């Protein structure tokens, strides 16, 4: 990948309208204040990596973006639509935002192909044949078309996570959210999932990714956001954030994950 290409792409992204806008978002679980005045814009086509210590609110943050969790203060706009109790807005957003979970969450009673076609057929009202063709296309892209007739329980963890990515992509989302997609996997499977995600990043998909995979962050992220205790503490390009941490909290965190690796 040439640097000039990169620069052009980044410039284009900077001009694009924000795909996700969070403005002074606050959330509590009971008395626990888990998101504190979080303000964050993600541009269309931007690849954002979120990192931070356990319990810092990373999952909560991205789960608020597709309203698996509700926030109590502030505004969240996705693709120009504000998240509220309005069910139609919610439907519209869920159709545009795909999500990949740490624990895959495939539907065990459905085959791989059925996992991928269910939502396109019943949410996007796509004809069955078309949905299946699309699903096969994405299963090929994540390199497991031959498993289409199997059940999730018959696949390895890495394969299941790739199916989960394909399943989300079959809805043709504009934005993809990843919540620690590789932390439930064995090391040799982490690689295959990360490769799939790098491939996806190259297509220009807007991605928000909670991960501690520094290599992945350096390779694809346009920006890294470091969270601690419900706040965004630092953000910037991966090299800057990882090489020149300004706060002690980030220094501590980086030293911990480097030791862990």
């Amino acid at each position: 990948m040439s640097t000039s290409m990169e620069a052009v792409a980044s410039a284009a992204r900077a001009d694009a309208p924000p795909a996700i806008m969070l403005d002074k978002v606050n959330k509590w679980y009971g008395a626990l204040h888990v998101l504190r005045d979080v303000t964050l814009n993600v541009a269309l086509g931007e690849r954002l990596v979120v990192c931070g210590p356990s319990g810092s609110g990373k999952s909560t943050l991205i789960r608020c973006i597709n309203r698996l969790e509700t926030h109590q203060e502030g505004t969240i706009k996705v693709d120009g639509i504000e998240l509220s109790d309005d069910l139609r807005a919610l439907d519209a957003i869920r159709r545009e935002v795909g999500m990949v979970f740490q624990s895959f969450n495939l539907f065990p009673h459905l085959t791989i192909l059925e996992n991928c076609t269910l939502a396109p057929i019943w949410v996007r009202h796509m004809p069955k044949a078309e949905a299946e063709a699309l699903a096969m296309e994405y299963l090929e892209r994540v390199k497991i078309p031959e498993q289409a007739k199997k059940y999730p329980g018959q696949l390895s963890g890495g394969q299941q996570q790739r199916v989960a990515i394909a399943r989300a992509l079959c809805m043709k989302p504009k934005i993809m959210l990843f919540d620690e997609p590789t932390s439930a996997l064995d090391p040799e499977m982490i690689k295959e999932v990360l490769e799939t995600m790098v491939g996806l990043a190259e297509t220009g998909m807007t991605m928000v990714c909670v991960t501690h995979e520094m290599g992945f962050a350096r390779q694809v992220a346009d920006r890294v956001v470091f969270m601690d205790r419900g706040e965004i503490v630092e953000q910037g390009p991966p090299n800057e954030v990882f090489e020149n941490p300004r706060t002690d909290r980030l220094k501590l965190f980086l030293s911990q994950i480097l030791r862990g690796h």
Partner: protein
Amino acid sequence: MSEAAIPTAARSAPITLVGPIAWVRTNLFSGWFSGLFSLVLLFLIVKWTLGFIEWGVINAVWSVPNNQTQACRDLKGTGACWAVITEKHRFILFGTYPYEEQWRAFLSILVFIGLFIVSAMRRFWRKELGLIWIGALTTIGVLMWGGVLGLNYVPQERWGGLVITLILATFGLAFAFPLSILVALGRRSKLPAIKALCVIYVELIRGVPLISLLFMASVMFPLFLPEGMNIDKLLRAQIAIILFAGAYLAEVVRGGLQSLPRGQYEAADALGLSYWKKTGFIILPQALRLVIPPLVNTFIGFFKDTSLVLIIGIFDLLTAGKTAIIEPAWQGFGIEVYLTVGFIYFCFCFAMSRYSQNLEAELNQHRVR
């Protein structure tokens, strides 16, 4: 010791380890105590079986000329008097349904059994199955009531026997099961009113015995109806059974819902599935599979509990059997009648039980690696 291991060719296991002889040895005679125990049991089983054959087949009286039960009484209990069944089987199966019209009740039983068999086959698990049910139940209604298509009208008070048991059980479960699913879902609803309603329903109904519900249905319920309006007694009992079964089944279904990991709900939500699509495609198919054994257990329980309607004077299979031997000529032949009635119940319940085991194995294939 450290020599390179030469791969040994696989041998078939010695005869002492496999085959029937080995099975008997390991399972029945693995020590002197278990051997003694096996021998005693074997002796008792053979003795009882022979005794039953002697009583039920060799010494049995199969028919007697017009209610002359002397031949039976002369046996003094050494043989079965199956003549009571030969004589009374129509009463046991059809109750007081008019004799010349009993073919209609018989046909209804066949329609019921056909309906069960069709519903049991996965090939028929499509939308059309609903139509088949509506068609079959309408046919049964027409056959039993008559009054149309040149069939004589038979009032409900004259129905009885096995047909009543099948009606109560089939309609009961056909309505109670969907009801229970709605209640189980309602108990997990985010809307407090719906949730409270479902909790109150389950707790109230579970808190009283079925018998008292049936009494209420037959005695108290009419008091609340406007003067002159009357709902048929069978229907009232049927409603009581549906409400009762619904509450129990709801708790079984709820158990299944609760055992699903939260991730399944979240994944369905994240894909944008609506509540009913999520429930219908993701949640219920998994939750119900998990609870097939307790579900069928409850089904079987209710099939037999329908016999409690005897206390409000409805002639189900068991009551018909009991009434058949009230006649002086046939008094004292309860064993034969109850064995027969019990056998009929057993056939239905055993079929349900076997079927559920197959279904469980078949539907849970995806969990086998």
